[in-house]
């Protein structure tokens, strides 16, 4: 019973989704209504001349057959040329306007999608995978554009072309028309069978190709194991088998594909055959003029393309609407973190932070209960607070809530006494700088990365920030200094270099609140000490939150908060906490022993 109800409900959701999708689509189309209107008008003109052309040839031929020659024939021929020119111009105009409109919509839709993605909160990116979003932004957008361009053009012209051409043929000779078009259903049947066979063999080729490239990718990624265990011959043999397999799949597919040109040529050729045999007989019987024969010949050729397009047209529209629905799904997600109507007019922050009984749970289907519970914490402006705790205890989550990366309930987090949800996002994010754990850099120059949060890249500013983050000495080693392209498509920086670049990026903002999220974990002890020394100057006049897994990092903090399983379990200064026999003291003992070894060995080895 409930399954049926679910099904009905699911059907209803799909139907309402479709309605919403069409509403959005209509909005885009209406924004470009002028182009579409012009394009469709041009299409109508085109179809008119399209149907007229064979008739003009017929008239010229009839004159020719009647013995007209020389300048007397030029009038009829001039008409042929004129209709041709008019037809071509109308076609040009209709294609350009409709395709341009489709491109315009693609442009607008892509801009809107990008803007929307930038507005969506982090919790959205928790549940949506990048690959999925990419496929919507790339493949689905293309499908929508095809529907609005070629698809729409074909919808506007194909039925008219077929109707007008067939109408003209019927007008000339209904019986011959039937003969010429009689093989059409057979042809459509063959083409469909053919298409199906081609689809399945193509699929098989894709599978073979995927197998082959997976093996390739894996062998290259695991090349050290391949070499260490002398597996080259085995992998070579396997690769040989896979390429052979792919070859066979290809050949199987080609055996069908190679027939494609023959099939496409079949339709006009069968029509020609019928025209010649039946039409020729009619001509001899005096029932069809030579001119009409020529008109039929031209109609037969011109009908081929529209007939091919019919199936394709439906396919385009089907795929286009399905894709638009997938894009619509993303656009329909409400950007839950945005400036609110009851926003306060706050232009800058001083740096006081207060958590009032804050609890937090990650959204999404696989949430694992509360990530933070009952957090009560007041951080005075200008103080340095360390947050420590085991992996997964909620340290990073706590820090991420301050710049409002995730939604918190009203009345649980205050900055300078104002509810974080009512502070303008612009103020919030330019006054708070975070150095995230993964120190993601973009594919742009190092200077642009450091100046990422600034309105523009100012060299003096970049230099100062880089210096304070101890990045300067690394820059010297880069091929083009600060202009070196970094990020995924640029020079590979070491983990430590990336972290220092991310630190410089944060410092360039000159923030009131600085959040270091386990920032220096990939830096060796020597550099960490140097950075920390430089940082103490930077800390001046800012509220600093240091999230750390190493206890040594937060030793000098004004306040250390220890978090375990989402709750604050201890708080105090280093000496107090180390003396008490709690979690902090235990972490400190464990890590000291570990660090001794690392630090000691690094010392002997001379660092890196």
């Amino acid at each position, binding site marked *: 019973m409930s399954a049926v109800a679910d099904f009905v409900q699911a059907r209803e959701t799909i139907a309402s989704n479709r309605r919403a999708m069409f509403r959005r689509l209509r909005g885009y189309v209406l924004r470009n209504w002028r182009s579409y209107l012009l394009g469709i008008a041009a299409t109508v003109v085109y179809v008119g001349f399209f149907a007229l052309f064979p008739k003009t040839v017929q008239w010229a031929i009839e004159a020719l057959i009647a013995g007209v020659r020389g300048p007397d024939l030029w009038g009829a021929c*001039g008409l042929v040329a004129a209709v041709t020119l008019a037809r071509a*111009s109308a076609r040009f105009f209709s294609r350009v306007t409709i395709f341009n409109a489709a491109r315009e919509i693609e442009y607008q839709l892509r801009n809107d999608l990008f803007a929307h993605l*930038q507005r969506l909160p982090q919790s959205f990116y928790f549940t949506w995978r990048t690959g999925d979003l990419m496929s919507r932004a790339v493949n689905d957008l293309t499908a929508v554009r095809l529907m609005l361009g070629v698809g729409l053009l074909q919808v506007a012209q194909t039925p008219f072309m077929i109707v007008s051409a067939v109408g003209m043929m019927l007008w000339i000779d209904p019986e011959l028309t039937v003969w010429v078009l009689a093989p059409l259903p057979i042809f459509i049947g063959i083409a469909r069978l053919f298409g199906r066979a081609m689809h399945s063999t193509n699929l098989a080729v894709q599978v073979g190709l995927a197998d082959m490239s997976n093996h390739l990718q894996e062998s*290259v990624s695991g090349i050290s194991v391949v070499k260490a265990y002398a597996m080259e011959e085995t992998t070579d043999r396997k690769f040989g088998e896979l390429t052979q397999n792919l070859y066979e799949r290809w050949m199987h597919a080609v055996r069908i594909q190679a027939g494609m040109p023959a099939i496409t040529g079949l339709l006009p050729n069968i029509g020609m055959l019928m025209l*010649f045999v039946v039409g020729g007989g009619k001509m001899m019987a005096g029932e069809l003029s030579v001119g009409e024969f020529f008109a039929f*010949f031209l109609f037969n050729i011109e009908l081929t393309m529209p007939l091919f397009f019919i199936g394709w047209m439906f396919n385009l529209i089907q795929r286009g609407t399905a894709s638009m629905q997938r894009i619509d799904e993303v656009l329909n997600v409400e950007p839950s973190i945005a400036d609110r109507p009851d926003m306060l007019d706050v232009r800058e922050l001083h740096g006081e932070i207060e958590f009032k009984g804050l609890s937090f749970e990650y959204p999404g289907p696989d949430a694992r209960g509360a990530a933070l519970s009952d957090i009560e914490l007041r951080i005075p402006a200008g103080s340095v607070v360390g947050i420590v705790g085991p992996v997964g205890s909620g340290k990073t989550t706590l820090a991420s809530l301050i710049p409002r990366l995730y939604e918190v309930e009203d009345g649980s987090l205050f900055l300078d006494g104002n509810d974080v949800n009512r502070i303008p996002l612009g103020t919030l994010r330019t006054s708070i700088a*975070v150095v995230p754990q993964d120190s993601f850099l973009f594919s742009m120059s190092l200077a642009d990365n450091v100046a990422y949060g600034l309105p523009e890249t100012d060299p003096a500013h970049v230099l100062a920030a880089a210096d304070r983050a101890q990045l300067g000495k690394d820059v010297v080693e880069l091929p083009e200094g600060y202009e070196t392209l970094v990020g995924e498509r640029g020079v590979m920086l070491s983990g430590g270099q990336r972290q220092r670049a991310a630190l410089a990026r944060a410092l360039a903002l000159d923030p009131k609140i600085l959040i270091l999220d386990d920032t220096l974990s990939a830096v060796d002890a020597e550099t960490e000490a140097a950075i920390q020394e430089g940082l103490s100057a930077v800390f001046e006049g800012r509220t600093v939150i240091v999230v750390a897994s190493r206890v040594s990092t937060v030793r000098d903090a004004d306040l250390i908060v220890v978090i375990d399983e989402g709750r604050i379990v201890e708080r105090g200064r280093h000496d107090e906490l180390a003396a008490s026999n709690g979690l902090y003291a235990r972490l400190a003992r464990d890590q000291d022993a570990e660090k001794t070894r690392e630090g000691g060995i690094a010392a002997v080895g001379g660092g890196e």
Partner: protein
Amino acid sequence: MSASASPPKSSLDALLEEEEDLGKAIDRALLTRLWQWISPYTGRMVLTLVMAVPMFFSQITPTWIVMTGLDQHIVPVLADQGIIEQSPRSDLDLPFLEPLLTPPSGFPVLWWLGGLMVFGYVLFAGLQYLQTLVMVSTGQSAMRDLRREVFAHIQKLHLGFFDTYPVGRLVTRATSDVEHLAEMFSAGLVLLITDLMKMVGFAAVLFWVDPYLAMWTFVVVPPLALAMVVFRFKVREAFRATRVLIARINATIQETVTGMKVVQLFAREERNQREFERLNGAHKDAWLKSIWYDSALFSVVDVGAGVIAALVISQATESVTAGTIFFFLRIMGMFFMPLRDLSQKYSVMQSAMSSLERILQLLDTDPEIQDPPEPWARHVGQPGGTRVRGEVTFENVWFAYNDEEWVLRDVSFRVAPGEKVAFVGATGAGKTTIINLLTRLYEVKRGRILLDGVDIREIPQRELRGRVGMVLQDVFLFTGTIEDNLRLGRSDIDEEGIRRAASAVEADRFINNLPHGYATEIHERGTNFSAGQRQLLSFARALAHGADVLVLDEATSSIDTETEALVQHGIHVLMEGKTSLVIAHRLSTIEDVDCIYVLAKGQLVEHGSHRELLAHAGVYARLHALQYSGEGAAALAAGR
């Protein structure tokens, strides 16, 4: 066709790379080298060219028949009836076709000729089918062979190469680059030639049928052809721009989505949006340009057909018949087809050439580490010869990954058979390099490494790596079952051997708990196994392969306490009775080895047993003491 399996990132990159460097369509130096792959298929290519001749004749057959039918049978009847006044042409009679074109008595002539049309079309379609089949199979065979060659070469390259060459790019070489090259066989070179042959053929036939009309027709052809070719190339150009731009757009979206947290934290949305809209706008503009030329092209083709029809009719002389006009209209339609596809074939050639260049660059990369030229005839590992006893000697070994940045400086040591030694030192001190050199994944720059007194460069790599077992820090698991991953293609290791190895290192406990035991499939490189389990698998792997010398790079990744005990046990089992070299990241695990070598900045600074080194009161002793004094470590770390 692109590899659907590769991640979008790398395919976007590949697209960018491939679109941004397109060179000449025909490069003679490259073509000369291409010959080695073409030469096995010359026969087939000649066959394709030869087939073009009967294809040409069968293609014009139906049109020829309609012309003959109109002029010889239909028009005379109409003339007899007085509907039109024209005498049939006889100058085009081909005596040898006469018997064929005449139906047996009593058979309606149009049906007979219709039958011949069907025959002509079937012949043409059949030949076309065969030609496609031959060309594609040639392309695919060439592709398969080339792919194997590229793959085999990739595997021969020394490990240092892979440090600088991204995996995605290598995959592109062997997939889409090879495909582009193969496309040249199936859609490029040969078709280009046959198309030109066809066009010449069409022109010749038209001139033969009616030189005067043909002359007039070919007055219009050059400007039309020029316009078509120019527009096509303009479309290509604009289209290429759109491809580069869309690749950039998609890369930007991908990067922004990946780094969205940073984007939002630094309130960069507006500036990003502006930059994105500029890029998106450039993409749109490139498209509008492409649409313009593309539509113009369509219209030129349209105009061409009409203008030629008008011209042919208007220039008709008294002798021109309906059949002639029909023939001209139809054949001119066919004449323009290859012209329209010309630019497509050109771009196939172009991308084939740039792919070829990249493939050759890869194939020309020196593998650097090669097996000795003369057959391996030493005593080691030979049937009946002495087996490796397991003595490892480093003699004044120097090594650098990059020129002159020495990672190892003048390192010498000797490990006696069955001895266990450990290497300690900071990251970058050169510990891991010792393993890479001993297994000859990298080549020493100076000095030499001996295995039982034989320079390892004189031992075939397969032999060497069979004798020296490696347990690497990063445990790489391949797609396949657990058993496959333990066997790694060695057919001489039986199931029993695998199980024995797994149970010796106590990996069998967790394996047996898996739903399919040893037949459990490993997914996504084994991410479904914990670090400790992966370690155990790699131990079992090394044990099953039964090496005499064992090199072990201790894992640094944290392992839970319970598994840690298993791992420690596994290490002991593994080292039993073997010469073992351990790269230690934790001092506590190596106290009982025979000798500890301390590396600093690529040099051996101390060596001896744990106790000796402690007594020596040097670097090691200091390190060891530091373990039990947090204060000291902090002082040391900060004081430097």
